[in-house]
């Protein structure tokens, strides 16, 4: 194994070594990266939060206002062309389930169900003409999370921490806060590192569980260990490892493993502290809606319960970002099972989207405000996404079918032009208004990489004879949403 190869696989501890510093060591960067962590040009941001609504959130009931649907509500839908629905989604036009109103100085129309986002709407750049490739959840989710519609490719966060490395020594560079009730389509593949080294995969964190990270501490099976024997173990392991290393000089892996035990011990101290929100002041808990959590919840889906869990993830995310975690992925919604605790509202948009959307809006609005007041928003990108949108027609009742033909994403924070609406959808929210020029996931990915100082065409890894990149062979930076 060459030194380069070794560093690629084993260097840099929790986040892995940054490609940037590898290139610099090898003299392969034309000039040293400007500022902190840029790979190809000076970055505008250095952290990312990816918010993923599992099950497909309805753009037309949340962010993309379609008065035409109110006018035509209940009339037979007519798309003017053959439409392939995933299920039986070509019922009558269905008006937005909630009323819309203007918010902020920009007067952006938002659904009342996401009204908490009104106070930060002037920070946000909406993209209303995002186009998917498939109405099948699994493929569409993978496309958003990895840029490919089949398994086997690194997630967006993995590429970013592979390219930029970690900005802390105590926590993983890429952390994932899944829905506490289960994983979305494809499970861990949505934060997997695939052919990139394992340390670039997302590390799962459940704030409510003990321990919050798997195997952080010995569990019930470690009762035979006293606190003293636990703390004596790692130093002894490494004293013996150093003896073993003598006579095996020049094998960097042996040193790396010694170092990794030291880092593990540091993480044991840092991780519990990072998820402990009990030290947060009352006004912050209030901001996130975490000040008055009921002791029990009804069986039906409800807003207080959704808020208690989702907002907690947002608050923990802020604490992770503060501590130098580079990429945080937050999930809302589990697998697409029943009863619905996900955005796949085939049956009843109001019932299921309602509590999920209110909790999402509350938590995300608080996160944006909180980051801003700490000066972190200016170099943190927040990306809101989902696998596809939902149809402007009903499924005969109160639900909507899949719409991969158009949906919305939004971004805010480092380098994003605040208060922007870009790329309109058509009058129904059925397809992009300009069908020849939709926004694709590749463009969103390219834009995020661009803001991080990465040229998406140049961050490549050769896997099995092909130079792979996050954006496959596509992608254009969306200049219109850049500050």
């Amino acid at each position: 194994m060459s030194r380069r190869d070794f560093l690629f696989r084993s260097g840099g501890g929790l986040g892995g070594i940054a490609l940037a510093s590898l290139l610099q060591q090898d003299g392969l960067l034309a000039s040293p990266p400007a500022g902190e962590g840029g790979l190809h040009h000076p970055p505008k941001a250095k952290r990312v939060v990816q918010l993923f609504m599992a099950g497909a959130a309805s753009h037309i009931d949340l962010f993309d206002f379609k008065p035409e649907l109110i006018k035509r509500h209940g009339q037979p839908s007519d798309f003017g062309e053959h439409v392939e629905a995933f299920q039986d989604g070509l019922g009558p036009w269905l008006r937005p389930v909630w009323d819309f109103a203007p918010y902020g100085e920009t007067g952006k129309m938002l659904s009342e169900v996401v009204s908490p986002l009104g106070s930060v709407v002037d920070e946000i750049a909406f993209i209303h003409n995002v186009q998917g490739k498939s109405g099948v959840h699994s493929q569409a989710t993978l496309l958003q999370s990895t840029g490919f519609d089949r398994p086997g490719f690194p997630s967006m966060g993995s590429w970013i921490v592979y390219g930029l490395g970690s900005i802390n020594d105590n926590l993983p560079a890429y952390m994932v806060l899944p829905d506490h009730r289960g994983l979305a389509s494809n499970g861990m593949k949505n934060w997997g590192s695939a052919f990139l080294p394992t340390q670039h995969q997302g590390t799962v964190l459940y704030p409510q569980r003990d321990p919050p990270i798997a195997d952080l501490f010995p569990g019930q099976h470690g009762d035979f260990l006293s606190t003293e024997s636990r703390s004596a173990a790692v130093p002894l392991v490494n004293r013996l490892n150093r003896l073993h290393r003598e006579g095996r000089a020049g094998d960097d892996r042996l040193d790396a493993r010694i170092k990794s035990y030291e880092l593990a011990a540091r993480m044991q101290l840092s991780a519990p502290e990072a998820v402990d929100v009990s030290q947060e002041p009352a006004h912050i808990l209030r901001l996130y809606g975490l000040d008055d959590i009921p002791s029990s919840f009804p069986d039906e889906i409800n807003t207080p319960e959704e808020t208690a869990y989702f907002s907690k993830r947002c608050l923990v995310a802020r604490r992770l970002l503060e501590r130098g975690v580079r990429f945080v992925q937050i999930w809302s919604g589990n697998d697409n099972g029943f009863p619905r605790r996900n955005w796949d509202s085939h049956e009843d948009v109001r019932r299921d989207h309602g509590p999920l959307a209110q909790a999402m809006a509350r938590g995300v609005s608080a996160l944006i405000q909180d980051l801003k007041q700490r000066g972190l928003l200016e170099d943190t990108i927040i990306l809101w996404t989902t696998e596809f949108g939902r149809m402007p027609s009903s499924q005969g009742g109160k639900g909507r079918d899949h719409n991969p033909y158009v949906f919305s994403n939004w971004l805010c924070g480092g380098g994003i032009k605040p208060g922007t609406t870009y790329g309109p959808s058509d009058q129904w929210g059925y397809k992009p208004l300009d069908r020849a020029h939709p926004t694709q996931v590749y463009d969103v990915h390219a834009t995020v990489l661009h803001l991080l100082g990465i040229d998406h065409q140049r961050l490549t890894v050769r896997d099995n004879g092909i130079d792979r990149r996050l954006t496959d062979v596509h992608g254009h930076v969306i200049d219109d949403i850049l500050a």
Partner: protein
Amino acid sequence: MTFAAIAPVLVGVLATANTVLGDEALFREGVAPVLRRHCLDCHNDESSKGGLSLQSAERAFAGGESGEVIFPGDTDSSYLLDLIAPEDGSAEMPKGKEPLSEQERRTLRDWIEEGAEWPAELRLEPEAWWSFRPLELPVLPPLPDDRAAWCRTPIDRFIARGQMEHGLAPAKEADRRTLIRRLYFDLIGLPPSPEAIERFVNDPRRDAYDELVDELLASPHYGERWARHWLDVVHYGETHGYDKDKPRPNAWPYRDYVIRSFNEDKPYAQFVEEQIAGDVLYPESSDGIEALGFLAAGPWDFIGHAEVPETKIDGKIARHLDRDDMVQNVAGTFLSLTVGCAQCHDHKFDPITQQDYYGMQAVFAALDRADRAYFDDPAIERQHRLLVARRQSLSAEIGAIESLVEERGGEALADLEQQLQAVQEGPSRSPEYGYHSQIASSADNEKWVQVDLGGETAIDRVEYFPCHDDFNEIGAGFGFPVRYKIELADDAGFSENVRLLVDRTQEDFANPGITPQVASAAAQAAQFVRITATKLAPRQGDYIFALAELQVFDSHGNNVAAGQPVAALDSIEQPVRWRKSNLVDGLYPDAHHNRREQELQEQRDALLERAVGHETLARREVVRRELDDVMAAIESLPNARHVYAGTIHFGSGTFQGTGATGGKPRMISILHRGDVQRPGDAVSPGAVASLGVASRFDLSADATEGDARAALAGWLTHRENPLTWRSIVNRIWQYHFGRGLVDTPGDFGRMGELPSHPELLDWLAATFRDAGGSFKDIHRLIVTSAVYRQSSARADSAFATQGQVADDPTTNDSGNRLLWRMNRRQLEAEAVRDAILAVSGKLDPAMGGPSFQDFVIEKPEHSPHYRYSLHDPEDRRSHRRSIYRFVVRSQTQPFMTAMDCADPSMMVHKRNQTINPLQSLAMLNNGLTLVMSQHFADRVREQSSDLDEQIRFAFLAATGRRPTVEEANELRAHRAAHGLPSLCRVILNLNEFVFVD
């Protein structure tokens, strides 16, 4: 250090000598190599892209579609030079590839300027990439005596040659203690026991090593170790992956087949053939069926198949991806070729065309992934085969009749079908379908549902309404029981005074569609009305009871059941469609719709009668009935076993497969840019044309899809196929040395690495092929070689002590490409886990059978949650070797994932071995390590009551050696302070435990 840096660069030398070469020599030695290397792949007589071929002077000077490209003596007019001139780092030609070097461009320019001399008789052949060249047995390289003396096998001669050429000397032979640990992990994946180590170290016999090798190759654990390598490559998993990630309970027979094949040392050609076409080529054997698990090993989009028909775009995409996975698995596994690029365009770097790629898709065009039945008893297997053949021909006949119907029925029929579909799928059906029982595996389960009228009521009549659900194309009457009864009672338990109102339990009752059913009750009084299905309705290989609505009318004509509480034996409760309360919500499939549907059906039947005549329709009925009989006969064969395999699928509803057409392959077309909506020319089964083995299969008109697979198998295992043999010996080498002779084991194409020892690779490949393809022969050859038996330490030079001059290898070849020492190996996830179990004395050596599950499944009915944290590591069933672990795709096992086990969602030709803190946490704190630390301690205590002896034994069991005094002191101190289990945990975390010298 890569091989490319060592290889001489010829082009540069020639190009600077342009001026001194004669005109013809300039062409032969300067121009021709450039054309061969960069142009001829596309511009040859056969596939002259843009109309241009550069194979002969005649064609070259004639030019292409854009006219002449070479004007002798006139560089300004010669378009060729413009095409290859780079701008901003890329040039028009070679298309999509790196531009020619400046030297190469100057050579072409000089040649044109000098008059473009090209001897008329000189025809150029495209330069074959190293791996595409014919495979021949190289001669052994000559060596000086001292180097020759080091060699133990022919392999060593090639290695010694490479070392000598670079001034390197080999390392000393490792000691026996090191060798036995190396051999054990390498050949069987387990640590040697302390007894085995001491026996071998003290064995006075000279051939003790060879004996040990034979012993380990004969061990059944050998197959377990090497099958795991194979399963990495073929991306074997036991769930589908994608959405829902359902389990595949019958995947494991393929895993056992692979283990058995390695243990039996099955000839490689047969091993390959079985996995592509075992059912055709080895029809009497279970191996021939189980091997087809290969084709189905990878992920599969359940939703894209089971919920989206092939007629929809998403359905087409899912099936395209499915075949793509099969094709990539074949080409990647057996050929070490990446062919995926060719689904959108001809491969940019390797001679693989879209035609080649879709030709391979066409081989598998009849297949899907499904459980396939087979029988251990050859007599029954034969019977099974005959029945399946009959099923196939009957299905084909029905298929033919259906096409005739479609053709004769024309637009009128299509129109009627469309109207019918519109009615059947119409949105006016309420989404609240009704009550739906849990799913049963057989029809003769009783299920009941009942309504509580709230008090004793005189009942005039009971009306009940069947459901409509298009699931599995059932439609009207969905879930309506085949036999049932209706009873009245005064208590919810129906414990006494039960009155029978309707009894249809004695014979099968024809499905009523959605016609409402009425039963008069003649003013009997009761509080509870219960419907019990005594024979359930078929759904999709399973059985249910569903009902849309139950209405109970009193003498005033009021429906007293409306909105009343409903109870049932069980219910799937999947709102909004299915829930108990839907039974009394007043919603049921409406009769107007039903009438319309019936009318349309009658019109269609009349049309069919006119179109194809009564006789054909009658024949269709006969064939259908016989087909039903054949299917029933297949079902009733005793002791069927199942393997999840690539197979013809006899499905219904959305996921039909090709069974209904008798396994007729789907039409495969070249897809423009891989887009299923832009099909081009149809393609017949074939393989990669540029490998020099006939790749168009020339199948006869009546050939079956099995014949196409057999042809592909024959093509893969053809003696002259240069990739098959090179690919596999490189893999074997890689698993012994940690790195292949070609370091990109999955890509032998132009983007892959060059071989470090090309002649050695060819020698191994040709030897393996010509001696019958025995894995064990090659293992023996490799592990008995001097190169394998070297020390892994850097300082242990075998020659330095003899006063020979050797370059410092740490600067000359720090990556050890030339194998001047053995590579130290980091153990893989499975070896780490198995070693933990083994040293703790808990490893259960039982072989084969269904996989153990080290997780608890929650919510199996929709998207199973695989909860590893709920598994009890003390569960003895999970103490088997890691190859028997149930491999989930979407939620991989955390401990194994931290240790870099193969990701079953992608082909893993080489493990990505990392070192990181999450691994350390897993090794320290995972339930397995903690539990096994205590068992390890128990085992140590059983060995001896002497404390020092206990420490010695524990250290020996884990590392293969006794501790030094210093180490023993450290261990003793920890034991005294923290106890033996804590000490055992420390030992399992040592570097020495997870590295092999």
